[in-house]
């Protein structure tokens, strides 16, 4: 899972400090000006400058004076019901059937031997559902209104006292309703699929003579080893991302029996508390982390057996929040520059310290466990140093008296490296029920679907069905991939614009190779044409919702609770687009009415 910096922002940080509100406002202003100018130019062509201006002004005036205040929830609901029934008549429920078929044969494509089957199953159902509902929203919303206009059935509505605002909003609500019902059904089916998919039972296959260790049988392509405590209760090792509780019970013939519980840890929703990260170099000075040569720079590395360290700062550490101590979870990477000891992993150490340097805990040594969540419990009281003197330190009184703590991680092996990103170490502040996180993931999908419906209805107010569909699809594609244009333009990404790509494909020129056509004039001309196209695409993309940012499937799949702030942001974005598209849809519909 890749967590971007902006995903940590709180709602207010996002809205005010990072200017989301300002950007939204500017977008609305820009679109209003463009809309006004375009409308005026069209009206000018139809009716001349004076009458044209009057017509536009009247439309705006009607919206403010009549249609907006005069819109009735009852009529919107009536339109919505109509849209709902219409969608039902168009047999959109077949989508559910399609999904069931997909799930039935999912086993063909999913690898039960995967290291994290729960993650794979979740990625599959969430990805599949997301794609399906976006397409559903696209087809539902794009064809309805143009068909009504084409068949003139729209007049049965507009001849009644129904306002364009009500038509637009009613349609969005109606399609949203049927989409929501379908999404609910898909969500329930997905949940059952995932829960059933990861459920399995083990039995004990062999037990050591002491009866305290043993191995389970092989189920779901894995088996566990377990160790019991003196009380006869223990847990298995972690396999495929989960463990089981094992309980020994005395049997009737003096032989002990063993009960193995259901899998734990596969379907979770951890509540992480993320901090901020800084690095120091081998001399202990502030520095950037080291790039050990990987293409991806998501993780930076620190050098072993030097003062090089990664220091996380966490806020909000209190005894109320972490009564039993800090549950530190890590997903660090190791990089070896020499073979070293093959059987022992690369070693690291954790020290918790007060940011003012007055107290720190003693070193907790660990062996890195790559690509899995490594859990460390930092107790409330432990040995450490106060003012450089050995002493017992209290986590909340000495280390984090103000709720702020620094976690210092170092690599202990000389010549070896540990890699990390800010999201790779966090404090686990409990869990939320998995089903709730799953539901939140579906809420994100619902928001995406609603945005697509809004765009579809908006385009359908002035375009024919197929064209509206293509336009909505274009928005969807731009929302997912449009940032590529900007990246090419800024040189972050290799390759060229559409014309250059058209040339490269038949010439079988890879994106990293120079475009060499033997004629610099032609090459320059191609780039000159491409540049404005890319700029245009990039600009349009910036006005589009970023569907990749709106997706939260990874949170669910990787067992991380979807932050309320993040969901709130997504809700705000969706609502903003709802307002924007409704408004544009209203004006287009109104204009068509005028034309009629």
């Amino acid at each position: 899972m890749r967590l971007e910096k902006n995903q940590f922002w709180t709602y207010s940080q996002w809205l005010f400090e990072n200017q989301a509100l300002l950007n939204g406002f500017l977008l609305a202003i820009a679109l209003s000006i463009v809309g006004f100018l375009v409308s005026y130019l069209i009206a000018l062509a139809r009716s001349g400058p004076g009458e044209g201006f009057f017509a536009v002004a009247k439309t705006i005036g009607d919206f403010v004076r009549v249609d907006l205040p005069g819109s009735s929830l009852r009529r919107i609901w009536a339109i919505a019901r109509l849209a709902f029934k219409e969608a039902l008549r168009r047999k959109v429920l077949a989508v559910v059937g399609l999904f069931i078929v997909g799930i039935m044969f999912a086993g063909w494509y999913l690898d039960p031997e995967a290291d994290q089957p729960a993650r794979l199953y979740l990625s599959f159902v969430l990805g599949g559902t997301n794609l399906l509902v976006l397409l559903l929203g696209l087809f539902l919303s794009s064809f309805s209104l143009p068909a009504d206009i084409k068949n003139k059935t729209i007049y049965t509505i507009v001849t009644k006292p129904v306002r364009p605002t009500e038509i637009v909003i009613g349609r969005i609500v109606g399609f949203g309703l049927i989409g929501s019902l379908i999404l609910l059904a898909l969500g329930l089916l997905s949940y059952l699929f995932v829960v059933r998919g990861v459920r399995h039972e083990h039995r004990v296959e062999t037990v050591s003579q002491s009866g305290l260790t043993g191995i389970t049988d092989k189920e779901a392509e894995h088996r566990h080893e377990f160790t019991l405590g003196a009380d006869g209760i223990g847990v298995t090792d972690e396999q495929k991302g989960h463990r089981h509780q094992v309980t020994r019970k005395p049997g009737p013939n003096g032989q002990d029996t063993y009960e193995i519980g259901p899998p734990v840890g596969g379907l979770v929703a951890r509540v992480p508390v993320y901090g901020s990260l800084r690095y120091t170099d081998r001399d202990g000075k502030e520095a950037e982390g080291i790039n050990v040569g990987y293409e991806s720079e998501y993780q930076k590395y620190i050098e072993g057996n030097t003062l090089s360290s990664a220091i996380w700062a966490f806020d909000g550490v209190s005894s109320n929040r972490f009564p039993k101590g800090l549950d530190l979870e890590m997903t660090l990477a190791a990089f070896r520059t020499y073979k070293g000891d093959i059987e022992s992993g690369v070693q690291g150490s954790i020290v918790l310290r007060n940011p003012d340097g007055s107290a720190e805990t003693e070193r907790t040594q660990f062996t890195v466990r790559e690509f899995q969540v490594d859990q460390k419990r930092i107790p409330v009281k432990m040995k450490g140093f106060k003012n450089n003197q050995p002493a017992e330190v209290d986590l909340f009184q000495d280390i984090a008296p103000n709720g702020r703590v620094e976690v210092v991680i170092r690599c202990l092996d000389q010549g070896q490296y540990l890699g990390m990103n800010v999201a790779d170490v966090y404090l686990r502040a409990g869990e939320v029920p998995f089903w709730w996180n799953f539901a939140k993931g579906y809420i994100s999908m619902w928001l995406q679907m609603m945005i697509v419906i809004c765009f579809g209805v908006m385009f359908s107010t002035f375009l024919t069905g197929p064209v509206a569909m293509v336009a909505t699809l274009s928005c969807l594609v731009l929302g997912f991939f449009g940032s590529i244009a900007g990246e090419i333009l800024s040189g972050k990404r290799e390759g060229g614009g559409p014309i250059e790509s058209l040339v490269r494909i038949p010439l079988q020129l890879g994106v990293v190779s120079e475009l060499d056509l033997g004629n610099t004039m032609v090459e320059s001309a191609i780039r000159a044409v491409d540049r404005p196209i890319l700029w245009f695409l990039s600009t349009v993309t910036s006005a589009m919702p970023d569907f990749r940012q709106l997706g939260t499937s990874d949170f669910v799949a990787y067992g991380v609770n979807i932050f309320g702030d993040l969901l709130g942001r997504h809700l705000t974005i969706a609502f903003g687009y709802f307002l924007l598209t409704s408004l544009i849809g209203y004006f287009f519909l109104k204009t068509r009415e005028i034309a009629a």
Partner: protein
Amino acid sequence: MNVQAFRRKMIYIGLMVLLLVPLYVLGQPKTQRGGKEVSPGGTLAQLRDQHNIGQAALGKIDPASESMRLATLGMRGIASTILWQQADYYKREKFWDRYAATLKQIALLQPHFVNVWDHQAHNLTYNISVEFDGYKQRYEWVKKGIDFLVDGTRFNARQPILQWFLGIYTGQKIGVADEKKQYRELFRNDNDYHDRLTSQGIDARQSDVLGSDGKPDHWLVGRQWFLQSYDLVKAGAYCKKSPHIYYSDSPKCRLRYSEAIEEEGVLDDRAKFSWNKAGDEWKEFGDRDILTTWGHTIKMNGLLSARESLKASLEAFNEEVGDAGERLTEKIRSELPSEEKQALDTPEDQRSTAQQKLAYEAGQKLKPSVMQIAEFAGPGKSRSAVDLATRVREANEYVSHVEAYRNQVNYQYWETRAIAEQRDVTVAARRQMFEADALLQEAKLDEAITKYDEAWANWYQVFRRYPVLMTDDIASDVIKSIRRYKRILDSDLPEDFPLAEFVKFKEMYDKGGMDWQVENILSRWTSDASKLDPEADIFETDLIKKDLLIDEGSGVMLPKKELKEGEVPAKDPAPTLEPSDAGQPPEPTPAKELPAESSSDNPSTTRSPNEPPSVRPPTLENPSQEDGLN
């Protein structure tokens, strides 16, 4: 208007019907009834049959693959390109589970594209596995790659290259990796994987794959994959590999297996038996007809007979042409330009750079080919001489081809190794060294020294009898053990240390690889060894009395002074060399220090100087001891 429309429709229908005819001819399916072919089908069906490219003939028809390909609605290429890009992204960002899942999807989309299986299986086995720090995780990903490739064999029933890769991955990836000790241990105890192997078509419980401990060994499992590949080729499938490399892999698995168990301390009859089997298989490989790139076949074992044939042809040719060769050389010499003549007449060490070049060119001219000699032989002999010259040339080419191919698979080395490792003396040498190392670990120093001394005496025999082993990994192991031995002694190696010359040789070999000096030494020693009675004790042979020295400056072999019967080997050994052979005596060079080892190998206890060696001290005169291991 209606009539026109009707006419147009009729034309369309007519055209459609017309088009159905070629469609029928092309696409009619093959029909069978009761197992018998009723109709061979249309052109396409017949072509499919002819080239064995029908879906069923290519491999398993998998519903998941078929439905996936259908679902892409003819855009399979685009879909697979997107998936490849996705896979690249996942790999870059280390989303391993998703990466593996995407590979499966790619493979389902392109099930008969062999490179997909090969490339991605290699990725999983070699590139992804090493990304994990834990060796157990690495081992799991090695298996994932192997399993992926096994899936590929199901979809591609007639692609022996996949089974060949399976042999490579199962054998070499596990057995040659840095963590081979751990991997081998994991493999032999991986009962679940053994079950899976059985379901994949390799019976992991059959005696042929069980190692010395009765558990499946990966080298022997790898060998089974190679054998499956050979079976496919035998059945008519084509494998794009050089035949000598391809067919050497199965016997090499057995050789490697034998080597591996010895490294793990199996140093008894089980090792000898394994080497015996390996030697037999290597010989079988040597007897196999190998198609060369020159179009003819050779046998790896055919070098001796080829050389004899060349010798016989050469003798017949010389008899036919008489002194024509010398006469021709004289003639060429007399016709050489004066500068070249002058260059040749100038002593080698006094030639200028230009003269060196001229002398070289003249030297080349003075080596006429057999064909030139045959043509020069005279009108009466010319025709038969040319025939004989052709035979000589062909025989010579054949010999060089066999030699080239043998070198590529290291044929002689493995042949000698298999023989050497079956000898009691080799097994004993290994065992004693292994035991001595173990004793050292337990800090039983005196016992370790005794064992080492026994081992050195045996290693001496092994290396003198099978000099090629001095270039092997085991030679490096011996060097490591000698270092440990030296540390226990806490002093220089004894004057009569039997492996002193081996140590020098190894230093030269490690420094310069197989350069001409090293090769020269090796070939001389090999030549000496070949004259020995295989059963004789090397200490009783003449070889021990006519030992050879290595001149450190030149690396040239110098004959040592022959010991007379009853003569005591010199303890202080400035070599007395025959003036005619030695020229100037070798300059003593400063003592060389071997690289330091870890402190764990450096116990402080030393051997008592008064303690007699526990084994017979070799009678090898060692005049170069001061230059040896100090």
